[in-house]
C-alpha cells in the first residue's frame, strides 16, 4: 500500500524537487503552497483517503507552519514532520509544541527525510506485544485499541504521545533515559535530539495529568530520564 503524504512548502523549486525525490522513495505526494491550501486539501484529500503523514515548512507566507500544524492537529492525529531552517531551540521546540512529531533541518538529504518518514509510518502501524489494558490509578491505557482514558474520559493523544505513554507504561516504575525513549519511540540512533522527548513529555502531561505542573503519572527523574508511576 502506498503511503499518502502532504507536502506543504511555499518555495516551488524545493517543493517540486522534494516531490520528485520522495516519489522515488515510493510515496504518493500531494502538494500545498500555503498553510491555508494545506488545510483545504487535508480536509478533502484527493481520492477520499486521509494522509498518512504531513510535511510542513515553518516559513510559510500568511499562516505560518506553526499555526498550520496546530490547525491540522486540532482535527487529526496524523504524524507531522516540521521542516525548519534553524536548529535553534526556539524554532525546534515551538514546532514540537505546535504538535509536530519530528523535525528536519534544511538543507537535508532526501534520504534522511525518507528515513524519518519510514520510522513514523512504521510506528504508526505496529503496537504489538503489549497487554490489552493497563491502568495506573485514574489513568487507563488500551494499547491495542489506541485509547487512553483519564478518570473514565477518553483523552486524545497524537501517535507519538500515545507511543511515548505506552513505552513508559510497559516499563512502569522503571526509569527510561531520553536516549532509550528516542530509540524506541522515534527509532532515533544514539545521537538523537533530547528536546524531542522533553517537549512531548510536556505535551503528554497537559493531557494526562490533572495538574501538569505537578505530575503524578509521568515523572521526571532528575538527570536520568522519565518514568511512569506504577
Amino acid at each position, binding site marked *: 500500500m502506498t503511503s499518502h503524504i502532504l507536502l506543504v512548502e511555499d*518555495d516551488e523549486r524545493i517543493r517540486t524537487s522534494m516531490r520528485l525525490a520522495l516519489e522515488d522513495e515510493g510515496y504518493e505526494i500531494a502538494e500545498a503552497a500555503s498553510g491555508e491550501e494545506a488545510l483545504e486539501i487535508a480536509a478533502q484529500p484527493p481520492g477520499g483517503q486521509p494522509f498518512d503523514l504531513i510535511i510542513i515548512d515553518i516559513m510559510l507566507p500568511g499562516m505560518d507552519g506553526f499555526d498550520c500544524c496546530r490547525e491540522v492537529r486540532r482535527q487529526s492525529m496524523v504524524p507531522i514532520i516540521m521542516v525548519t531552517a534553524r536548529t535553534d531551540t526556539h524554532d525546534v521546540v515551538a514546532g514540537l509544541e505546535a504538535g509536530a512529531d519530528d523535525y528536519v533541518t534544511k538543507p537535508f538529504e532526501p534520504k534522511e527525510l525518507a528515513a524519518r518518514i519510514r520510522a513514523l509510518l512504521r510506528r504508526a502501524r505496529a503496537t504489538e506485544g503489549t497487554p490489552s489494558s493497563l491502568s495506573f490509578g485514574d489513568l487507563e491505557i488500551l494499547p491495542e485499541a489506541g485509547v487512553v482514558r483519564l478518570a473514565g474520559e477518553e483523552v486524545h493523544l497524537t501517535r507519538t504521545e500515545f507511543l511515548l505513554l505506552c513505552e513508559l507504561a510497559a516499563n512502569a516504575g522503571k526509569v527510561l*533515559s531520553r536516549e532509550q525513549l528516542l530509540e524506541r519511540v522515534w527509532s532515533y540512533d544514539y545521537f538523537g535530539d533530547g528536546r524531542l522527548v522533553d517537549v512531548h513529555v510536556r505535551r503528554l502531561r497537559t493531557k494526562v495529568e490533572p495538574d501538569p505542573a505537578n505530575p503524578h503519572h509521568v515523572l521526571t527523574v532528575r538527570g536520568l530520564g522519565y518514568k511512569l508511576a506504577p
Partner: protein
Amino acid sequence: MRLVARRTRPDGPSGAPGSSARRHSRLGLRNRVTLTFALGSLALSTTIGAITYFTTRSSILRQAESSIANEAYANATLLRQQLGDGVEPTRILTEIDESALTQSALWIDGRWVFIHVTLREASLPPDLRRFAIAESTPAAEVMTFEGVPSYAVGVPIPAAKAAYFEVFSLAPTARTLQIILVALLTAGAVTTIAGALLGLWASGRALRPLRDVSQAALAIASGRLDTRLEAGDVRDLAVLASSFNRMVDRLQQRIERDARFTSDVSHELRSPLTTLAASLSVLEARRDELPERSKKALELLAAEIRRFQRMVGDLLEISRLDAGSADVDRSVVEVGELVRNAAAVTGATVPVDVDPAAAGRLIAVDKRRFERIMANLLDNARRHAGGATRVSVAVAGQSVRIGVEDAGPGIDPTERTRIFERFARGTAAAGSRGAGDGTGLGLALVAEHVKLHGGRVWVEPGSPGGARFVVELPLLEEEGTEEGEARAAAAVEGLEGAGGQPPATLATGTGGRGR
C-alpha cells in the same frame, strides 16, 4: 580627552624601552599612593615634632637655668651673711647642700673649700672660675659632671673676697626632655602609619572605578557582551562609565552584525541547497540511465553539492558558536560507550581501545557535539592520512584523553597549532587541493566544541609514526557508584541552567582551556 595610541616596539635595538615602565608597574599605583601618603605624613610629623621638641627644650632649659641661678644667688647671699657672722664655711656649705640636689664649693681668699669628694677645683670649668674669681662677674655654664649634664654657676662675693660655686644636676630636666622626645617620636610613627592607611583607603576608593572597568573589560573579552558599568554618583566616573558603555554597545552591535551576517548568508543558502540535494538524489536514482559523460558530470556535481552542504552546515555551526547562542545539551554517559558509539555512527571501522582505568568513568557531554568532534577527527584522518588506525581512551588526572591515531605523514611541528584555525589546510594538502573535499572548518569546529566542554585539543606525533589528535575532557569525579550517579545527576541539573558556559567545577581540567 587625549587618546594615547599604544605602540608596540618588538625587539627594539636598545632593548631597554620597556624597563622604566616595568619598574613603575612593579610598584603598582596603589602602593605608590600609599607610600606617598606615608612619606608625606612622616615628613609632616617630623617637622612638627622637631619644632615642638626644640621649642619646648629651650624653654624648659631656660626655666631651669633661671631658677638655678636664682637659687645660687640666694645661697650666695646666705653665705655672705653667715660668713660675715663668722660661721665656718664648711658648715654653711653642708647646710646648703642638704636642702638641694647640688654640690657647692667656695673659694675664699685664695683657698678652696670643698665638702664633696668628687667636686674639686679641676671639675669646675676654667672660664667660670676666671669670671667669678678674677673678674668678679657672675657666670654660668653647662657642663658634664660625673657623666651627668649639669649647670654650674659661679657667684662672686666681693664683700668676703670669696666666690661661691654651685653645680646643679640637670638629670631631671634631661629625663623630662627624653620623655617629651619619646612621646613626639611615637606620635610621629602613629601619624605615619595613619597616613599610610589613609593612602591605602583613599587609593582603593579612587582606583575602584579602574578595577570595575578592568573587570568589565575582562568579562566582555570572555564573551559576556552584555556587561556594562554602573554610572555611579561621582560625575567624573559617570563620564567614564558612559563612554565605556557606549564603546561596548558599539562593539556588541558590530559583533552581532557580523555574526548575523554569517548566519543570514548561510540561511539564505539553505533553500537552494535543499533543492539541489533533492534534485541530486533524483538524478542519482537514475544514474544508470545516463551516458558516461553525464555520469561523470553527475559525480562531480554530487561531490561538490555535498561539500557545499557540509560547508554551510559548518558555517552555521561556527556562527552559532561565535554568537554564543550555542545551547549545550549535556547528559551523563560512560566514556567508553560514548566513544564507541560516536565512532560507530560515523561509519568508520576503527578499533576503540578503552583503558581499564577509564572504563566505567562518567562524563557530562553534549552527545551530538561529541559526535561531531569524533566525526570531524576521523574524517580528517581519512582525508589526510588514509584513515584512523586506532582510537584510544585513557584517564589523565581528572580528565579523559581520547586519542585518534593515524599512520599518515604526521603533522609538521610548525603546523600543529595552525591546523585548528579556520580554513587552515596542512601544507601537505595545499598542493593537492583540487582533490580535497573538506570544508576547512572541521578541526576549527572540533576546537570550538571541545572548548565549550571546558576541555582542550592538540595534535602530537603518533607512537609508530603518523599523528595523534588528542581531545582532553574533564571527567565527573566519582566512578559509577550510586553516589556517583547521584552526583552526576546533580551535575547535569547544574549544567542545565548554565547554558553555553561550561561550569567551573567541570572546566578545571589538568590544563587550561585554550591551546
